């Protein structure tokens, strides 16, 4: 069981049913959950002047649910102004909530389109008619939420579109009891919200491992050969498999690492990806496991090679037997039931495994390639007498950059998604990071690592706050892709040199988040580390191992070059 989730629901309509359903959903995700509800319709007052009960509840998630507020926009004499006015009131609410509850995640629901079209379903409707007013309002909501930071938008509008307005909105319940959503919509909405909260706390899934036969194409390639498999426009089933491949390719191009796990002869399995209608090719897969071992073994191998934890993995297979084997042996791996091939895309999409609380970055776009490079690097290890020799052969270089408002997205994403090398597990918001950095002497950097195999991207971030006699590290995260490459030690050297300039010690936190074993291993390797202490101070002249990494940084980051460039 993880830390309890305390969700406060502030609504312009009745929120109790969503709260109840959400707590059930979170419990089924092994999270302890409780809910608090503002008095009916008092979302704005409660945001501005939180009641004692609200304070006492100590929410860590605040959910604003105001599905009926948009009604005034298209009917207003100046709809554009009404739209901005509504957004402004939301911003005021978020800002106040952030002041009162700085640690809480704020989720704003967008506005569902109930399909009202007084002038029909053509593009001749008035500019600020229902359709366009809502589209503009939701678009502007995203812009404002992005700009003001720390507010996640939950896309109720898409859920309404998917279910159909007549299944989403129950007018009778609304007029009688001010319950906006139908029973069914309440359950779907709560499920989606629960996934968002779970992925905020645990990070989204990162690795998607797929079977090949009857999952990526129809038929068994070992029996019928590549020319016999069903894939592409020749048959309806072939089209459905191609659509699923397109969906997977989209995921892989936006940060999800793709891998194949197949019971086949490896050469035969690979042939499937050379089919003229195959959308996925070998290079789309960071790992490719084919053979006759149990699939759970391959999944474990893939996770080890990619340095990803099995609980960040989703496994898709058409075979009931294989799914059961993986569930039994690796219960932490998500193994969904996707039905028949024509349902694969919609079912996987509904499960929302990969949705996160941070924006997409350049690192996401090339992630499978980054992991493929990691595979090449691993293969190189065996060619050297010692691990240090191997590291030397990599010609690694780290480029350090100050964290600014402009490059904050990636830093925030690292803080949100990193579990294993994460000092304290705190998911600082963009706003909180900027607040720390605005304090005098505070120091925040991100590090980009490259070597002879290529650029691993921006893989680590450190946020430090200067107090009287110590530099307190408030957050230190590093992507698990680059563990054991010496980067953590190179960064520690940079941090100590900063401390040396100021004549202060460095303070690290010793926190067990149950997932940050990799950080704690690193901590215990630091000379003088005392596992009994929750906070651990390091003198700036502590001798630490010198790893073969060249550190590049601007003058503004560290003025004492000698101490950090070996």
């Amino acid at each position, binding site marked *: 069981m993880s830390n309890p989730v305390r969700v406060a629901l502030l609504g312009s309509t*009745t929120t*109790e*049913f969503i709260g109840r359903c959400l707590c059930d959903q979170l419990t089924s995700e092994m999270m302890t959950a409780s809910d608090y509800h503002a008095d009916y319709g008092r979302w704005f007052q409660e945001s501005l002047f939180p009641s004692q009960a609200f304070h006492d509840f100590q929410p860590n998630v605040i959910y604003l649910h105001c599905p009926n507020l948009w009604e005034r926009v298209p009917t207003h004499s100046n709809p554009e102004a009404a739209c901005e006015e509504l957004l402004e009131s939301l911003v005021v609410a978020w800002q106040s909530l952030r002041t009162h509850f700085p640690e809480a995640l704020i989720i704003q629901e967008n506005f569902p389109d109930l399909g009202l079209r007084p002038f029909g379903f053509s593009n001749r409707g008035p500019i600020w008619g229902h359709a366009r007013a809502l589209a503009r309002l939701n678009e502007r909501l995203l812009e404002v939420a992005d700009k003001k930071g720390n507010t996640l938008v939950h896309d109720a509008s898409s859920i309404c579109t998917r279910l159909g307005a007549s299944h989403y909105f129950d007018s*009778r*319940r609304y*007029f*009688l*009891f001010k*319950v906006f959503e139908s*029973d069914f919509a309440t359950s779907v909405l709560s499920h989606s919200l629960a996934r968002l909260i779970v992925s905020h706390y645990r990070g989204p899934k990162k690795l998607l491992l797929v079977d090949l036969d009857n999952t990526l194409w129809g038929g068994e390639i070992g029996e019928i050969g590549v020319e016999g498999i069903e894939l592409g426009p020749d048959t309806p089933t072939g089209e459905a498999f191609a659509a699923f491949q397109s969906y997977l390719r989209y995921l892989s191009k936006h940060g999800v690492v793709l891998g194949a796990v197949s019971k086949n002869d490896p050469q035969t399995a690979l042939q499937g990806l050379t089919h003229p209608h195959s959308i996925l090719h070998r290079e789309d897969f960071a790992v490719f496991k084919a053979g006759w071992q149990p699939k759970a073994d391959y999944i474990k191998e893939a996770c080890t090679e990619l340095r990803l934890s099995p609980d960040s993995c989703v496994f898709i297979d058409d075979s009931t037997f294989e799914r059961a084997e993986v569930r039994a042996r690796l219960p932490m791996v998500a193994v969904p039931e996707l039905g028949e091939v024509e349902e694969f895309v919609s079912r996987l999409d509904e499960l929302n495994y990969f949705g996160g609380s941070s924006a997409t970055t350049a690192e996401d776009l090339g992630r499978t390639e980054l992991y493929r490079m990691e595979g090449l690097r691993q293969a190189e290890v065996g060619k050297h007498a010692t691990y240090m020799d191997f590291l030397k052969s990599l010609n690694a270089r780290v480029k350090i950059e100050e964290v600014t408002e402009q490059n904050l997205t990636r830093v925030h994403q690292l803080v949100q998604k990193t579990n294993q090398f994460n000092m304290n597990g705190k998911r600082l918001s963009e706003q909180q990071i900027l607040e720390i950095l605005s304090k005098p002497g505070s120091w925040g950097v991100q590090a980009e690592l490259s070597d002879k195999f290529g650029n691993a991207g921006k893989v680590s971030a450190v946020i430090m706050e200067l107090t009287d006699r110590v530099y307190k590290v408030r957050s230190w995260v590093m992507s698990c892709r680059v563990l054991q490459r010496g980067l953590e030690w190179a960064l520690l050297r940079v941090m100590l040199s900063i401390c040396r300039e100021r004549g202060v010690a460095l303070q690290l936190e010793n926190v067990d988040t149950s997932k940050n074993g990799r950080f704690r291993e690193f901590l215990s390797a630091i000379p003088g580390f005392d596992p009994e202490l929750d906070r651990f101070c390091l003198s700036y002249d502590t001798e630490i191992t010198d790893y073969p990494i060249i550190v590049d940084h601007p003058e503004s980051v560290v003025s004492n070059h000698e101490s950090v460039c070996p």
Partner: protein
Amino acid sequence: MNQSVLDEVAKAVREVTRCAPSVAIGPETTATDVPGWDSLAHVTILAKVEKRFGVRLSLAEIRGLKTVDDLVRVVTLKSRNGI
């Protein structure tokens, strides 16, 4: 009075409000007689009864409900007519 409908309605009320077994639920019972029968419980009781009998009450019909018997009558009538 349709006893089987009454029994189902009483069952739904007990399940949702979790009232003590000593609280009697009969045709003349109103929401104020049953601890826990508030507006939120009312929504859930109606949803359960509608689902059990495959009927859907209109807004006006729900507003007209005063006693358990009112609910039993409208459900009996609607389920007999298949609406």
